[in-house]
């Protein structure tokens, strides 16, 4: 291992950054007394591998590259490393390596991106190897000290034992020597049947500080000499600042500066954020609203509607001859669904803190992707990578808003650049957060199903029309003009494999229509509305065929046994086929999302034609391996809050080119009184790694909608949210 040095950060700011992050940013500080070939934590403790630091008192510090935003990945990843390290779980702590260090060390910690439910499933191999290699080095170091063959030694519970003699030594005592060894090349991993920490519902490592107010979020950061900024960007996307009258507010108490941020935003910097915010509210700003100032939800909907019957469309999945089958059908069923723009609305609005000087730019930010925040810092500061650093702060929710987008980092750096040497904390108001989202894309879907004269389901055409995320956010990921992410849950194979490959003829295609409203990945994103489209239509088809919805699906799922297994699991638990309590109706849905198989059964009653009560949800997931079943259950329960809030209450409407909703009073979110009882079935079948944070959201809405239709005598609602139809969740 090469010795490395900290980037040029003053000791003082280093310590501040470390304190703000809540853990020691304990990386690579070269301290001469310990010799040249060991990478050191800030306190001098040796790094055994990039993933593992062991202190003399046996404390194990596990490096976590992904971001914790509530989903539990910090604990799950620590379990993965600890399993192979054979360490004492009670001695485990964690810390985030910084993106700047990652760049210096050729991405020693791999990908920092925490989205797409990838935190564990995309890094399980190399983080476990990081733990296993460290264990092998610790055992080797002990064997060397004892001058015994390494094969005679074993490791458990942070101790190395020489088996023939019974001699023992703790990890903390041999870590220094272990860190000097060459890491092994061949690093075998345990058989899953031997796991002791993975698969167990161990307690989260990050709970206590969240109960006492001690946990520091980006909003809470304090740095010496720090000022606070409030910002407003042109509410019409693509618009610019024409002028602002700084003199009107610059004399207000605490106000330090009124300044442009890029060409589309204005910020006020003041001693406190309240001073900055109230001054910004009073600041006259004239916008050049640009070419989109006349766009409305209705005009976008018209364009998407036209796409439903357009000739050109990208084919995402097909089998047989769907158009031929439908042309020859004895009976056809047709339905059009529509899904709105939605905001992520994490509880903590967007924010970032930046400090800029001519030879250093530092950013403190709650981010789902430290490397992307780092890239934004480089671009906005104009400084090279060795003069930039990003410190990740705990997130008050992310849901995708803080992953692919770092507009708030760009803004914070642009502000700090105009006030060199002064740390500036930029906080968005909730209103700014609602207006400047990266919205769940807007689509419509027309589905046509055909039956032959014998009532056999013969063909399906599913035409999606509307917005592509990748065209806007990651155009390099497009495939010959097609956005594969549009087809989540409908794909021919892979992590979003379609579950009804038994349909003899099907065609699933996308007429891309991109409005000016910026789209984003949104906890699950397209799987959510795709699940509504296909799963509600499955019930419509079953009703048209006068068949039971479960039996109808089963006949189409012979090629999808794992999809079917989770569906069967919820049906069995719910007592499908047996009578429900009086007035209660059931609905089903299944999907494959982020490589996990998920299904739900909802039990619902509807009173007065518009008041929906959800009595019970049963939700099953097969994520391959269940790293922490207790946290998976929490993600499942929480996903129904997220998914049903979206279904019942959430829509961002567009008027005059801008988003109309500005706060939770017009963009509602479920309360505890509406929360149904969620029963989880975690049924890992092994052999693959599926995601957890997002997949189960997608079955929430269609299961409830199918139960509602059953309760309402077959009446279907096909545009969302349900509040637009006067329907409320009680």
């Amino acid at each position, binding site marked *: 291992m090469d010795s490395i040095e900290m980037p040029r950060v003053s000791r003082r700011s280093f310590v501040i950054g470390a304190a703000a992050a809540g853990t020691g940013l304990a990386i690579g500080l070269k301290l001469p007394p310990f010799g040249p070939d060991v990478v050191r934590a800030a306190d001098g403790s040796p790094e055994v591998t990039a993933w593992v630091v062991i202190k003399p008192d046996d404390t194990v510090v596990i490096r976590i590259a992904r971001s914790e935003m509530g989903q539990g990945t910090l604990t799950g990843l620590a379990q993965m490393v600890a399993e192979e390290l054979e360490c004492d779980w009670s001695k485990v702590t964690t810390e985030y390596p910084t993106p700047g260090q990652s760049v210096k060390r050729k991405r020693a910690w791999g990908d920092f991106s925490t989205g797409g439910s990838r935190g564990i499933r995309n890094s399980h191999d190399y983080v476990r190897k990081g733990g296993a290699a460290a264990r092998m080095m610790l055992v080797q170091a002990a064997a060397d000290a004892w001058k015994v063959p390494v094969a005679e030694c074993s490791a458990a519970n942070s101790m190395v034992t020489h088996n023939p003699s019974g001699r023992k030594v703790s990890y903390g005592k041999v870590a220094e020597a272990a860190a000097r060894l060459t890491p092994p090349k061949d690093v075998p991993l345990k058989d899953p049947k031997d796991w002791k920490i993975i698969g167990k519902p161990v307690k989260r490592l990050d709970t206590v500080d969240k109960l006492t107010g001690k946990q520091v979020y980006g909003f809470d950061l*304090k740095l010496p000499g720090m000022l606070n900024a409030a910002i407003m960007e042109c509410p019409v996307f693509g618009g610019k600042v024409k002028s602002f009258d700084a003199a009107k507010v610059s004399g207000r108490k605490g106000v330090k500066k009124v300044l442009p941020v890029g060409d589309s935003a204005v910020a006020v910097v003041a001693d406190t954020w309240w001073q900055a915010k109230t001054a910004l509210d009073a600041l006259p700003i004239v916008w050049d609203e640009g070419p989109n100032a006349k766009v409305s939800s209705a005009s976008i909907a018209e364009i998407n509607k036209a796409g439903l019957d357009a000739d050109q469309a990208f084919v995402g999945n097909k089998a047989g001859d769907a158009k031929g089958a439908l042309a020859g059908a004895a009976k056809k069923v047709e339905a059009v669904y529509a899904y709105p723009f939605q905001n992520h609305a994490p509880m*903590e609005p967007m924010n970032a803190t930046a400090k800029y000087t001519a030879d250093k730019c530092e950013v403190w930010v709650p981010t789902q992707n430290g490397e992307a925040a780092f890239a934004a810092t480089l671009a906005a500061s104009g400084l090279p990578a060795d003069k930039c650093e990003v410190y990740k702060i705990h997130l008050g929710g992310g849901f995708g808003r803080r992953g692919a987008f770092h507009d708030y980092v760009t803004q914070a750096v642009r502000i700090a650049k105009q006030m060199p040497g002064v740390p500036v904390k930029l906080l968005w108001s*909730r209103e700014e957060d609602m207006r400047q989202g990266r919205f769940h894309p807007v689509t419509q879907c027309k589905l046509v199903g055909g039956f032959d004269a014998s009532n056999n389901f013969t063909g399906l055409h599913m035409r999606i029309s509307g917005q592509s995320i990748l065209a806007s956010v990651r155009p390099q990921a497009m495939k010959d003009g097609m956005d594969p992410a549009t087809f989540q849950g409908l794909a021919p194979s892979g992590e979003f494999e379609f579950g009804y490959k038994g349909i003899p003829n099907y065609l699933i295609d996308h007429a891309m229509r991109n409005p000016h409203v910026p789209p984003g990945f949104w906890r699950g994103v397209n799987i959510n509305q795709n699940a509504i489209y296909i799963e509600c239509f499955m019930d419509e088809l079953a009703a048209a065929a006068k068949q039971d919805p479960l039996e109808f699906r089963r006949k189409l799922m012979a090629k999808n046994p794992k999809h079917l297994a989770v569906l069967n699991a919820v049906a069995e638990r719910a007592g499908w086929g047996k009578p429900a309590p009086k007035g209660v109706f059931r609905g089903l849905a299944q999907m494959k999302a982020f490589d996990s198989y998920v299904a739900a059964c909802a039990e619902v009653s509807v009173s007065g034609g518009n008041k929906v009560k959800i009595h019970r949800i049963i939700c099953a997931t097969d994520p391959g391996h269940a790293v922490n079943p207790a946290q998976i259950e929490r993600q499942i329960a929480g996903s129904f*809050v997220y998914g049903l809030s979206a279904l019942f209450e959430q829509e961002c409407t567009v008027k005059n080119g801008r988003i109309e909703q500005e706060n939770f009073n017009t963009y509602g979110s479920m309360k505890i009184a509406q929360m149904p009882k969620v029963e989880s079935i975690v049924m890992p079948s092994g052999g693959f790694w599926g995601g957890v944070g997002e997949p189960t959201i997608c079955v929430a809405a269609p299961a409830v909608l199918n139960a509602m239709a059953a309760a309402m005598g077959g009446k279907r609602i096909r545009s969302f949210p349900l509040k637009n139809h006067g329907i409320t969740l009680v």
Partner: protein
Amino acid sequence: MAKLNINGKVHDVDVEPGMPLLWAIREYAGLTGTKYGCGVAQCGSCTVHVDGAPVRSCVLPVSAAEGKKITTIEGLAVNGVLTKVQKAWLDHEVPQCGYCQSGIIMAVTALLNSKPKPTDADIDGAITNICRCGTFQQVREAIHAAAKA
């Protein structure tokens, strides 16, 4: 200049009287456990106790809190000993991201003070906080556990 009694300590804060209590707590007293989530009394992240009653501090003017006893999340545990609500939260692992939990814990603490054995309906009526991670199932379990403790 306003005098605010927060967690038993008097803070002299030089603010305009119309400023919401939330910002006096966060930016003048330096207690950041109380969160900003909406600024319009919708989400409850800013909930504190004023003379024992739960209030949404983002819309309560500082002037209305003068001379009263304000308790924030930092004022619950005494000498690091968690309250029964905090203990139940720990045992049931309620928080996910945790940002809204200060406000929920304050609302629940006030509920249990006035109603030591709340029914589910009591909980539904009293706890109207927003949690985007969706911790409500654990919140309900933990409330009942705290009530039994």
